[in-house]
């Protein structure tokens, strides 16, 4: 037999086998789509992550998890870092040991009751369970409801201090739930709640809103005290006299400098 005949045989048979394999695959796909069976059993779930607790100075590394709304996400910061990355970096520098961000789970526009629901998710359970430090901001979207649509904020929209005050009794129990759930997920982590500020301090008619914000922060501080291993880092004073310098162009979120100031405070509180 000559070489071309051999080539044809090998080529022909190989291609035919490939064809049969692919036809089997196609048939299988049809069957699986239209007449699915139960499928294989899944491997056992592994145990959720747990924090080691204990004194920080004895630890080789620290884990940080952050949850909450756009402030924790870092919205408005052109460098994209937000306060979370800054806190992690400067904490690592000051404590001279690796500090790891487990996850930044913040979602833009999240409200307190949504966060409470999210806290039941596996991903939150793992990330918070592992952490030594939990950073969070929440409640801003509950109080300043129109915070979603950026542009029109400058006019203040239908926002009024009275309206904010009305929201307060409704929102406070939600914050309580969030604190309680985070604590359930991790009995040893230090919780840092970043307080609210009045982003509309420069509008005369919105100046009284600062009182509402102060009430809210006060309530949060009460929760933190009751918890024992939590604290509230105040931010209400940071932006009042120089709003334009530290807030981003959406007039609601801090800019890079604003986030840097928040992160300085958090690092100070943690030491």
């Amino acid at each position, binding site marked *: 037999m000559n070489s071309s005949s051999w080539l044809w045989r090998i080529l022909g048979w190989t291609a*035919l086998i*490939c064809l049969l394999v692919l036809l089997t695959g196609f048939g299988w796909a049809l069957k699986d789509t239209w007449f699915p069976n139960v*499928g294989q059993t899944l*491997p056992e779930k592994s145990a959720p992550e747990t924090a080691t607790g204990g004194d920080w100075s004895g630890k080789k590394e620290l884990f940080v998890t952050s949850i909450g709304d756009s402030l924790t996400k870092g919205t408005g910061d052109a460098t994209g870092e937000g306060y979370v990355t800054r806190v992690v970096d400067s904490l690592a520098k000051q404590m001279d040991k690796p500090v790891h961000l487990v996850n930044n789970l913040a979602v833009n526009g999240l409200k307190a009751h949504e966060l409470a629901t999210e806290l039941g998710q*596996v991903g939150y359970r793992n990330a918070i369970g592992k952490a030594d430090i939990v950073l969070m901001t929440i409640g801003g979207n509950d109080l300043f409801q129109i915070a979603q649509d950026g542009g029109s904020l400058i006019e203040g929209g239908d926002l009024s201090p009275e309206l904010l005050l009305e929201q307060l009794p409704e929102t406070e129990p939600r914050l309580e739930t969030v604190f309680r759930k985070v604590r359930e997920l991790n009995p040893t982590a230090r919780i840092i709640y970043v307080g609210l500020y009045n982003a509309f301090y420069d509008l005369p008619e919105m100046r009284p809103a600062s009182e509402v914000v102060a009430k809210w922060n006060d309530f949060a501080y009460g929760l933190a005290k009751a918890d024992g291993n939590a604290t509230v880092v105040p931010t209400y004073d940071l932006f009042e006299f120089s709003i334009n310098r530290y807030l981003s162009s959406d007039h609601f979120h801090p800019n890079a400098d604003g986030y840097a100031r928040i992160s300085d405070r958090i690092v100070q509180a943690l030491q």
Partner: protein
Amino acid sequence: MANMLALIHNETLKVWKKKRFAVIVLILMILIPVFVYAQMKISQSTTEKFHSDWRSELQSRITDNTNALSSDRIPEEWKKWRRALVQQLQYYLDHDINPQTPNAVTFTRTFMDNSVTLFIPLMVLAIASDLVSSERSTGTIKMLLTRPVRRWRILMSKLVTLTLYVSLIVITTALLCYLVSGLVFGYGGWGEPVFVGFQVQGADVNTNGVHAVTQGVYLLMQSGLIWVSAMVVSIIALMISVLVRSTAASFVTMMATIIAGTILANMASSWKSAKYLFNVNLDISSYLRGTPPPIEGMTLGFSLAILAIWGAAALIVSFTVFTKQDILN
């Protein structure tokens, strides 16, 4: 029948001697290492960031996509896609299954998913586009047609040859991909579970029919579906090759159609009737993944029917024209 076999034998060797298949293998051998290297770099940096904790990486993907959902600048169609993705990823996380275990099978599966709309058709066209037209441009068609063989048999032998090569190309792509990526990611992963059966219903993903299959089975099903879509492309290319004299013209026509299909699939969701075009329906392996189809109302059955109709029509045209046309020049 022996006659037919001899014709197929002849055609197969002709394609082989023209080194078309060798070129395809060469392209694969250059491209796959490039992608493997890129993927390696990506996974290195993610392992560094997440300390090889896939759960927090997965949660991070979920959070990122959720955040993208809250932006007003993202078109509604993309949101639908992301919403489905978030729900799928959440399903994986809830069942404690890593959707992207780092191994050669996962890489192959992802590579095949990404190559079904452009890369595989391109390779198939390298063979299909000049199957008939090259005989005409070189003049050998006259030799072929003056033999005492019916014309439809000649075209049939070309079709069978094409089928054989398409099968060869799909399997070779998967195999080379597996062999090359295994060097970096390890050759395991056949038994890892993958979820199939997600059903996109409006904004929600129905998880009632979801069940796990092994990655090996998934790869087999996926290759089968990719083969079907590659076959339809090659049959239509065969038709163009019968109709057009120049190989370059037939290749460019097909390639333009395929590329138009991928663009349309990305933007045509408001032009509903685009779903009857074959080139929007080529990504049939996406139904296994459960990603939302480009246009509302498309299902695996629908896409297969559309592809079958286009394929059948192309065959009818090819055979009618080829048996009737005059050969002049």
